[in-house]
């Protein structure tokens, strides 16, 4: 399937990028504008365990507790705009018509009431689950047991037809190889899994999502490599963790950018997904609005770039929080307050024309905290974007170029005595550079080699990618 491919940057320089502004802003939902001069908080949530037992109990949890609490807190604190994100739980994706439909409709109906009563600008993103199992099959007709590929599209239909304003997914193509490679510190395998196979899977999946979105006049948002690069990032962790060297996870992030871009090339318009930390690279290339998460997502996970990653966001998210009571209200209310106030700070900086100063202060805070933060700093993200578009029409070459550029940037800063690396991080970086530089320049040669090298990886079936 042919789709457009980025061969040049939408931004003419890194410094042009700042939070709250995108080259291609969007208007959708109930009066919401994204990337049009302000940052909007995006609150994400999960229901309490046990509420998933029946459609009634789950709908009550999502609508009467979670959505109502969120809208009330947004109005209480005077936030002018808000986006909700409902990341579907497994039970919703398993039976969209029965489990998801009443939730999608109920949430929107309640948001409409708040919009009408207070004039608050709001919208909701529905992120449909991707439960596909590589061993059963990623394409239609392959998964005879559960029909997961078909259920994804059914899920998008249900979401788009019943109240979603934006639809997104966290697709899992190439994850079987990436999971195998990440625990073996095998960057070539990771490149094959995410850079190549992941791109092929998105090229199959995303035109269908865009088609459903267009049919129902909703926004096809974007994807994320949560399944791959976030696995690497969380395993790399912080200074007490010893699972994956952080130089490895940094390079996987750059490779992931070349893959997540495919959604936009297939017609997604942004905003991309908050957990896609590769977002700054995507925004530099495409000019599309970006959702990001960092210090306001500590309820969900610890990252090493809590401030930095706010640098060029258009939506500022909390990733996800399970609904439960806190001293200051329910969890969704407390975390909305956290991200809403941060958005307010960014918007105040914009009003005072100090936004680029604040952007740089965010970056300065975390630039040298980890290699991954370093390569995602907007100036370096821009350089990785340039490496991608230079060979933009080839999935393999651009993923390799992104990884190589990230590794070179880290090495250069380390040699200059700026970005510190542990011995393990440095050794890993050198191996990554050697491995990537030794790869062939021809896609065919690489794929032939990889198909043999990873033939016995559990759950890997080349037919999932028409190979």
């Amino acid at each position, binding site marked *: 399937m042919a789709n457009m491919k980025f061969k040049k940057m939408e931004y003419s320089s890194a410094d042009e990028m700042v939070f709250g502004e995108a080259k291609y802003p969007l208007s959708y939902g109930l009066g919401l504008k994204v990337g049009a001069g302000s940052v909007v908080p995006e609150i994400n949530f999960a229901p309490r*365990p046990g509420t998933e037992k029946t459609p009634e109990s789950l709908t009550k949890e999502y609508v009467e507790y979670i959505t109502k609490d969120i809208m009330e807190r947004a109005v209480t604190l005077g936030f002018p705009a808000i986006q909700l994100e409902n990341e579907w739980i497994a039970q919703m994706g398993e039976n969209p018509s029965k489990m998801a439909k009443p939730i999608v409709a109920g949430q929107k109906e309640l948001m409409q009431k708040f919009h009408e009563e207070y004039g608050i600008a709001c919208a909701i993103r529905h992120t449909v689950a991707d439960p596909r199992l590589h061993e059963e099959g990623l394409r239609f007709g392959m998964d005879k047991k559960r029909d997961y590929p078909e259920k994804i599209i059914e899920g998008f239909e249900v979401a788009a037809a019943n109240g979603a304003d934006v639809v997104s997914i966290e697709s899992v193509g190439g994850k079987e190889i990436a999971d195998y490679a*990440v625990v073996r510190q095998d960057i070539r395998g990771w490149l094959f899994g995410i850079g190549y196979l992941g791109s092929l899977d998105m090229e199959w999946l995303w035109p269908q999502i865009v088609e459903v979105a267009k049919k129902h006049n909703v926004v096809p948002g974007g994807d994320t490599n949560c399944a791959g690069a976030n696995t690497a990032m969380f395993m790399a962790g912080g200074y007490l963790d010893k699972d994956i060297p952080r130089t490895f996870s940094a390079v996987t992030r750059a490779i992931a950018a070349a893959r997540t871009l495919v959604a936009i090339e297939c017609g997604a318009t942004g905003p991309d997904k908050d957990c896609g930390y590769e977002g700054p690279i995507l925004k530099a290339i495409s000019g599309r609005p970006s959702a990001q998460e960092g210090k306001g997502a500590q309820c969900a996970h610890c990252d090493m770039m809590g401030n930095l990653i706010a640098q060029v966001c258009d939506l500022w998210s909390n990733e996800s929080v399970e609904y439960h009571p806190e001293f200051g209200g329910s969890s969704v209310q407390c975390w909305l307050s956290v991200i809403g106030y941060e958005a307010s700070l960014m918007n105040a900086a914009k009003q005072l024309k100090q936004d680029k100063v604040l952007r740089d202060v965010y970056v300065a805070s975390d630039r040298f905290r980890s290699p991954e933060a370093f390569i995602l700093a907007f100036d370096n993200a821009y350089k990785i974007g340039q490496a991608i578009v230079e060979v933009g029409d080839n999935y393999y070459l651009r993923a390799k170029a992104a990884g190589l550029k990230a590794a070179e940037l880290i090495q250069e800063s380390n040699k200059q005595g700026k970005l*510190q690396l542990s011995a393990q991080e440095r050794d890993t970086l050198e191996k990554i550079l050697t491995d990537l530089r030794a790869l062939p320049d021809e896609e065919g040669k690489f794929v032939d080699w990889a198909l043999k090298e990873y033939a016995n990886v559990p759950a890997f079936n080349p037919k999932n990618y028409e190979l």
Partner: protein
Amino acid sequence: MLDFDNMNSDALLKRYDIVAESKEKPETIAEKHLPKDPLLRKVAEDVLYMKYKTIEESVTAALKENTPEDVIEKGLLKGMDAVSDLYGRGIYYLPHVMVSADAMDRGIKLAEKALGSGRKTKGDIVMHAAEGDPHDIGKNIAAVLLKSNGYNIIDMGKDVAVDDVVKTVVDVKPLAVTGTALMTTTMSAFPRVAEKLKENGMDLPFICAGGAVNREYVESFPMGIYAQKAANGPGLVGKALDGWDWKKIRDKWDEILASSE
């Protein structure tokens, strides 16, 4: 854009990982695990240094002068002991363990062939990722660590139906069963597994772990034993092998983890 490179970041962060970097050499630590016999030592070193491409050659050479049991016990497993020690001290990272385990696996297959049958393992462990949950990387890591410690793994995969888990446990009667889940809404399969195991007369440690899983939740249902990370697996299962029931393992959980750190 401000000048980031000329900023003093010492006031913003401290690289505790670099401060705490081990000064010990891996060779020195490994030495106490390695056998003296040169052929067995070569086998152990191939595991230790992740030489999965040459290990078959080394095992073949060792088998000419040693029994298959000795090649496994005194060569391959000794190499893995050294790897575990280095991992425990934070000198080796997880990928070292995984690649060393791959090498050990190749060696064991060859030695077992010479043995004419499968080697005797410490016992069976049934592993699965919860119904509705497609995330299984943690389970896969735990499986490698348990296998490296001499257990036979029955890996049921991911998104495994509650009834399938129960049926396998009833059929196999393993030392322990494990379950992993990333999401709070899929970990709810665990109490259902526990309930049905109980209905079927099973009473064994059900070790549960994963992103959203916590100790309080796991200890809210019978048989549930919490694991913080994959590396806890061998320590917890080791107690089942020693004959401890799940109640005793749960009761002494802090001590078990502290002693296996």
